[in-house]
């Protein structure tokens, strides 16, 4: 405990920063992709058209039943096979995250859409708005406004989830920390440091969520 060597962190700061950038970048892209695909899945699920809603329900429930690590393994294996050529670890990971997170986002978005009263849809219909216009101008804006805190919470979870690309050695913050830990023989320093960095970012995120929730109820 007494011989905590902080210089190992300082010496490797640029390398660690690169890893953190990759983590944040992957998180951001996966959030955007996950929300878009999740919205599509949620609308399919609520469409009332049986083939679409059954497909969406099956997809969401399948993905939600399996561990993220297994999904990552799946896409690392499937994506190059389907495309006939390797496209690099980052893109495989990104596809895996988008496909995985979309299932979770779609459940959040579905609940958000369902929280909008049916009367709002009726009001839109009564003035002759089409199905898409009602979704676009009436339902989704209200639903997303209500969902912002929980979407941010899911974003924080997603950021933590990105650490799992460690299992395919993609150089995110976690992998990079562990590389430094092993090569320098400083496991304690590096893992405590990694925990601290993750904690600061995620805790700041959860404070933001709390602020958003207060703003919403005020």
């Amino acid at each position: 405990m007494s011989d905590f060597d902080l210089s190992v962190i300082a010496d490797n700061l640029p390398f660690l920063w690169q890893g953190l950038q990759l983590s944040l970048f992957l998180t951001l892209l996966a959030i955007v992709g996950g929300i878009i695909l999740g919205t599509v899945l949620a609308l399919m699920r609520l469409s009332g058209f049986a083939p679409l809603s059954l497909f969406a329900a099956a997809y969401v429930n399948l993905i939600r039943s399996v561990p993220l690590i297994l999904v990552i393994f799946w896409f690392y294996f499937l994506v190059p096979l389907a495309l006939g050529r390797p496209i690099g670890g980052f893109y495989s990971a990104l596809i895996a995250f988008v496909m995985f997170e979309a299932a979770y986002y779609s459940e959040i978005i579905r609940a958000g859409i369902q929280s909008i009263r049916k009367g709002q849809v009726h009001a839109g219909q009564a003035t002759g708005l089409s199905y898409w216009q009602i979704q676009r101008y009436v339902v989704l804006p209200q639903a997303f406004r209500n969902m912002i805190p929980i979407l941010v919470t899911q974003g924080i979870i997603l950021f933590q989830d990105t650490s799992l690309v460690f299992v395919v050695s993609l150089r995110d913050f976690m992998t990079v920390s562990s590389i430094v830990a092993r090569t320098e023989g400083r496991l304690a320093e590096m893992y405590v440091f990694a925990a601290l960095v993750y904690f600061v970012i995620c805790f700041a995120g959860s404070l933001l969520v709390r602020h958003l929730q207060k703003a919403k109820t005020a």
Partner: protein
Amino acid sequence: MITITDISKWYGSFQVLADCTTAVEKGEVVVVCGPSGSGKSTLIKCVNGLEPVQKGSINVEGIEVTDKSTNLTKLRARIGMVFQHFELYPHMSVRENLCLAQEKVLRRSRDEANAKAEALIDRVGLLPHIEKHPGQLSGGQQQRVAISRALAMDPIAMLFDEPTSALDPEMINEVLDVMVELAQDGMTMMVVTHEMGFARKVADRVVFMDDGRIVEDRVTDQFFDHPESERAQDFLGKILNH
């Protein structure tokens, strides 16, 4: 203008409407009343196809609402509707509430829609509130905005689904006044309401419903002075005696 012929509707095995037949002529005001659960709200929602019916037909200005091939969206744009819980879009200002369908459905220009919105909001005395959001208005004000939103589409008829039953008592009259004015201007109206004073004042006919059936469909004075059915007598006795 609105002809309802023999319609029936079920929720699962529960029948909410049973062989209902009635009509609303152009310029006529028809009040639909009856105890809660009698199917009156369901009936009015069938008129513009918000609720589908399983049997019978509804015809609005020569258009079959119940026909599967009918473009309901187009029809609804021409019939205004006012809801019990206002259903203003909470994320939009009063102005945006009035302009949305004008621009997206009728394809009016922004200026044209705005001019219409301002004129209508002014008529119900709420012009100073036009940039506010619905949540910042009282219930009575919200319902007046909702009426204006429906009128902005230049409807050929207006449907009112219990427009005052979610309001505090002191706000009911400000909404009824707007409706009376509308009736006097010759608007075709179908109104589900418990406000018998309003019915007596402006309705041409009263439709009384119970248990999903139309029990009475009479000229207003006859309905109030000589209700035929026991259930209508009972209902009037309860609602007028306090």
